[in-house]
């Protein structure tokens, strides 16, 4: 009869439910972050239903009089812009663009970074040297200036922006994944996999990859924020996607039209807050995993 204590069965709740409940209780930060994500995802999905107007439509008050600077009201929850567009509807539709930019950029950052980090860390040798050299070079490129130059030299747009953000951010992820892999590679069970005849690819993708997934997800959630902030900054400087409806472009529009001097808070505060909230969500999610990642910190 094996040792009673170690084998003692815990309560009968399914593992993932228990884990989730425990997570919710222990990680209020992460829960808050996930809640914010969820809110924006729902908003993005039902943007057409939630928005009260077409965000692009120039609204009129009578013949040829554009409905500009209307104060917040029941028809225009956040009023209208200088160009006569509904702020609330732009805000709602902006969540689509933000999520699109954030999630696609993060996706590429995570996929490229994780893949190269895995290969670099596990294979070592020239593969490692080449990948890390490329990473070094990219880390030697200034982030925002690079994005601006690329936007200026090519047609500005979401694709350009997402591509340059992904290009600039994967090395961070790759480096962290790589160092994680370097330590995982020394773990007994990875060595065991080799001894028991596992192919290199199987070791990398079946044994090691799941272990670095949380770390990659963390960097992904930070990349979401970076991408959104970059979009906002690029838009503010006039390098954004001119056809998009994004929070960054809304802020640019508001500043260009001196909403600040006019005191049209309902125009330039909400997009900023939305950006803060969505970026913050990424940080919160990643901070929630702090204990997961740095168990040393847990008492």
């Amino acid at each position: 009869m094996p040792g009673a204590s170690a084998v003692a069965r815990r309560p009968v709740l399914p593992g993932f439910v228990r884990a989730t409940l425990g997570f919710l209780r222990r990680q209020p930060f992460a829960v808050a972050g996930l809640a914010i994500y969820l809110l924006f995802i729902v908003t993005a999905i039902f943007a057409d239903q939630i928005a009260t107007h077409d965000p692009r439509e120039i609204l009129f008050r009578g013949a040829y009089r554009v409905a500009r600077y209307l104060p917040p009201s029941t028809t225009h929850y956040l009023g209208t812009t200088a160009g006569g567009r509904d702020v609330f509807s732009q805000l709602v539709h902006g969540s689509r663009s933000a999520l699109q930019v954030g999630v696609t950029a993060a996706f590429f950052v995570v996929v490229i970074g994780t893949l190269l980090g895995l290969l670099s860390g596990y294979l070592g040798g020239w593969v490692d040297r080449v990948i890390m050299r490329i990473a070094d070079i990219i880390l030697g490129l200034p982030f925002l200036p690079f994005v601006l130059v690329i936007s200026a030299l090519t047609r500005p747009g979401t694709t350009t922006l997402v591509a340059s953000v992904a290009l600039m951010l994967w090395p961070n992820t790759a480096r962290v994944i790589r160092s994680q892999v370097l330590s995982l590679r020394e773990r007994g069970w990875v060595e065991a996999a080799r001894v028991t005849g596992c192919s290199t690819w199987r070791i990398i993708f079946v044994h090691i990859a799941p272990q670095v997934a949380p770390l990659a997800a963390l960097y992904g959630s930070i990349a979401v924020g970076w991408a959104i902030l970059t979009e906002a900054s690029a838009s503010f400087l006039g390098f954004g996607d001119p056809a998009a409806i994004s929070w960054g472009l809304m802020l640019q529009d508001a500043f260009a039209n001196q909403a600040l001097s006019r005191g049209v808070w309902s125009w330039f505060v909400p997009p900023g807050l939305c950006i803060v909230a969505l970026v913050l969500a990424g940080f919160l999610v990643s901070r929630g995993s702090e204990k997961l990642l740095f168990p040393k910190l847990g008492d």
Partner: protein
Amino acid sequence: MKRFGARVAHAGFVLWAVATLTFLLFRLMPGDPTLNFLSDSFSEEMRADLLQSFGLDKPLPEQYLIYLGSLLRGDLGVSFLQKRPVLDILLAALPNTAALTVTALVIAYAFGIVAGAFLAFARGTVTEGIAIPAALITRAAPEFWLGMLLLSWLSFAWGIFPSGGANVAGSEFTSEWARLTSVDFLWHLVLPALTLALYLQGLPLLLMRATMLEVLNDEFIVMARMKGLSRWAIVMRHAARNALLPVATAFALGLGSSFGGNVVIETVFSWPGLGRVLVSAVQGADYPLAQGAFIMIAAVLVLMNMVADLLYAWLDPRVSVGARR
């Protein structure tokens, strides 16, 4: 010594790669640099002339060699629009950017380190529950938005700080140094530096807190407690000193990335720095100037990446002093 040499060589390699990349970026992208000069009197002949005067009529490999050679001599070419040497334009903007970056970083790190260390001890308290989200929010807010809000309150509404620029219009100084140290300059510096610092402080704060927490769990801290050392001695001499290693590295890295990252702040506060030069050059398609500004910003970044590595090695005897048996 050996590490130093290798690191410098590595930085040299990265610089070369960045320079090459920049060259290709600016040459291979679509768009005609002569578009700037379109006017009612612009002719094909003038266009050819213009291309020739900037060496753009030569084959690409030749352009590349000339470019590398010029770079090595510190020659960044001549601005399309300003017709002045790019380097002169950049060097005029550099002190302003340096002053802004360094001031903001020093404020941010001084505050971040102290607050981070404090928060490490406040683990699990209400203070922590408020301070950490607050620190995260400052990092999540778009810089320009924050800057505009501060500008609107502290300058336009309450009139405490000037609304932009680096000096009162037309002020005279005997030297650049006198300008940078003048009360007037510093007064103009306050708002942009504070905004930037507000954005930057989150990193040192969180980093300091995290490393501090890690260090505080280290056995040698427990040992220090066993030795009956005072709390002050434990925190300052042992914990902080160890926790500062990564923070010092982050400072150097921050210095590098901030040089180019100030673009937004410089625009908001009409700060005449490198970032503004870059943005206006890019907007105006002044390719030699944009390219030069980009390379200079990248060079500072690469240099600071190198400094960060060396600094870490220098500060940490485990790296700087080899093992001995």
